[in-house]
C-alpha cells in the first residue's frame, strides 16, 4: 500500500506543475483606448488627475507575462531615450521611490497615454491600450513595486540597476522588517 500512496503523492506533485499563469495575448480589441475617459484639459495642478480604478490594473500589475512584455516594450519604444533604463536622464528616474504623479498603475497608465507637462509625450493611439498597461506594470516593477516572483529577470544589456526581481521591496525600502 505504501508505494501506491507514494506514487499517488508524486503524481499529484507532478500535476501541480501543470498549473501555469494564463497569458492573455489576444485582448478584446473592442475595449481599446477609445473607451478610456479623455481628459477635458491638460492644464491641471499637481498630479491629481481623476483616475478611476481600472480592473486591468489589478490583473496586469502582478502578472509575469505582462511585466516581461512591458520590459520588452520599454526597450522597443525607446523609453530609455529619456529615462535611461529607469535610472533617469532627461526624464525622471523610475527606479526610486519618488513618484511625481503617484505610483498607482492608473496614474502611470495615464502618464503614458496622455503625457505630462515638461516633456513626457502622449502615446494615445500610438500604443494599444493593453501594451500601455504592460508598460505601466513594468515601470512600477522598476522600483520594487511588483512581487519578485513575477517581476522580469535577467537584463539582456547594460542596465542602471539589478534585474527587477532582485530589486529591494519598495514597501520596506530594502530594510529587513
Amino acid at each position, binding site marked *: 500500500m505504501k508505494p501506491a500512496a507514494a506514487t499517488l503523492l508524486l503524481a499529484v506533485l507532478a500535476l501541480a506543475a501543470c498549473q501555469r499563469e494564463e497569458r492573455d*495575448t489576444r485582448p478584446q*480589441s473592442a475595449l481599446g*483606448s477609445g473607451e478610456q475617459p479623455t481628459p477635458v484639459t491638460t492644464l491641471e495642478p499637481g498630479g491629481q488627475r481623476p483616475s478611476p480604478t481600472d480592473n486591468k490594473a489589478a490583473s496586469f500589475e502582478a502578472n509575469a507575462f505582462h511585466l516581461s512584455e512591458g520590459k520588452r516594450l520599454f526597450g522597443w519604444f525607446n523609453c530609455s531615450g529619456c529615462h535611461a533604463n529607469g535610472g533617469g536622464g532627461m526624464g525622471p528616474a523610475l527606479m526610486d521611490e519618488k513618484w511625481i504623479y503617484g505610483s498607482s498603475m492608473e496614474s502611470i497608465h495615464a502618464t503614458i497615454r496622455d503625457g505630462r507637462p515638461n516633456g513626457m509625450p502622449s502615446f494615445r*493611439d*500610438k500604443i*494599444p491600450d493593453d*501594451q500601455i498597461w504592460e508598460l505601466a506594470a513594468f515601470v512600477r516593477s522598476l522600483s520594487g513595486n511588483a512581487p519578485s516572483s513575477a517581476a522580469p529577470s535577467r537584463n539582456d544589456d547594460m542596465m542602471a540597476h539589478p534585474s527587477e526581481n532582485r530589486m529591494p521591496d519598495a514597501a520596506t525600502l530594502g530594510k529587513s522588517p
Partner: protein
Amino acid sequence: MKRFASIALATAIALFLHGCAGWQSALDPKGPAASELAWLIWFFTGLCAVVWVLVMIGLAAPLMMQSRERLEPLVLDAGADNRKLRVVMTAVGLTAVILVGLTLLSFFANRTLAAIGSDAALTIRVTGHQWWWEVRYEDATPSRILTTANEIHIPAGEPVRLLLTSTDVIHSFWVPSLSGKLDLIPGRMNVLDIKADKPGVYRGQCAEFCGAQHANMGTFIIAEPRAKFDAWWRDQLQPASAPMSDEAKAGKDLFLKRPCVMCHKIGGTPAGGTVAPDLTHVASRQTLAAGTLTMSRGNLAAWIADPQGVKPGSHMPVVDLSGDELNVIVAYLEGLK
C-alpha cells in the same frame, strides 16, 4: 491477401518518400554544400547498413551450425583457437579501417564546405527574431545597404556569406536544399556560406525551438540570375511607392497615426520603427508573417485584424481598428510593391 499487403506497403513507402523531394528537403540538394552532405549521409547509411547485415549474418550462422557441433562435444579441435583469433582480428582490423575511412571522408567533406564561401562577393546579415528573420544586405556604400525581412534573395551560382545572429533567443538557420543548419546566438556572429547552383525558390525553417511560434518561422531563399538579382536590389533600395488611390492615401495617413508606426519602417515616410519587419516593399514578398500566409489582400487584412489568431504569442499586438480603417490600411500596404 499477401499481395494486397505488399501493395499497401509500397504505397505507404511511396507516400512517405514523397516528402523527401521539394523545396525544403535535405535529400533533394540544390547547392554544393547540401550535395556534399547528402552524398556523405547516403554513403554513411549505406556502409553502416552493409556492416549491420554482415554482423547479423555472422551472428546467425554459428547459431544455425551449433546443433551439428554439439554432437561430439569432447573432441578436441587444435585449430579452433587460431581460427577464432583470426576472425576477431579481421573484424577489429576492418572496423578500424572503416572508422578511419569515414573520419577521413567527413574531414574532406568539411573542408569542401568550408571552401565554398572563401571568395564570397556578397555578405548578408541575417538576424533571428521571435518569430521572423531580419535580412540586411551589406555593401561598402552605405546608401546601398538594404534591410528586408523573411526573404533572402541571392544570385544563383555565386557563393554568398551569411552572418547569423539573434536579438532574443537562440534560433537556427536551416535551408535543407542548400546547406546544413547553423545557430543564431545573441551577442555572437556565426558565419555560414551558401551557394545555390540553379535559380529557384528554396524554403528554410528555424531549426532550434525558440518559442510558441517556432514552427511558423519560415524563410525563403530566392536564387536568381545575377542581372535579375541586381535589378531586384536596385528596386528594393527605392523608397516606398506613393499611394495612388484616395483609399491608399487615407491608409498611409492612418498608418502613420496608429500603433503601426511604432514598430514598422516604410522607406520615404516618417515611419522608422526598427523592431518589426521593414514594410517598404512588403507586397513584393511572397508570404506574410515569416512564411505563415501567402501574400494577398485578404491575408493582409486577416493578419492585421487578428495577428494573435494567426500566430498566437507573436509580438504583433491586436490593434483596435474599425472595418473601414482596416480596409484603407490594407489598400495602402497592398500597393507597396
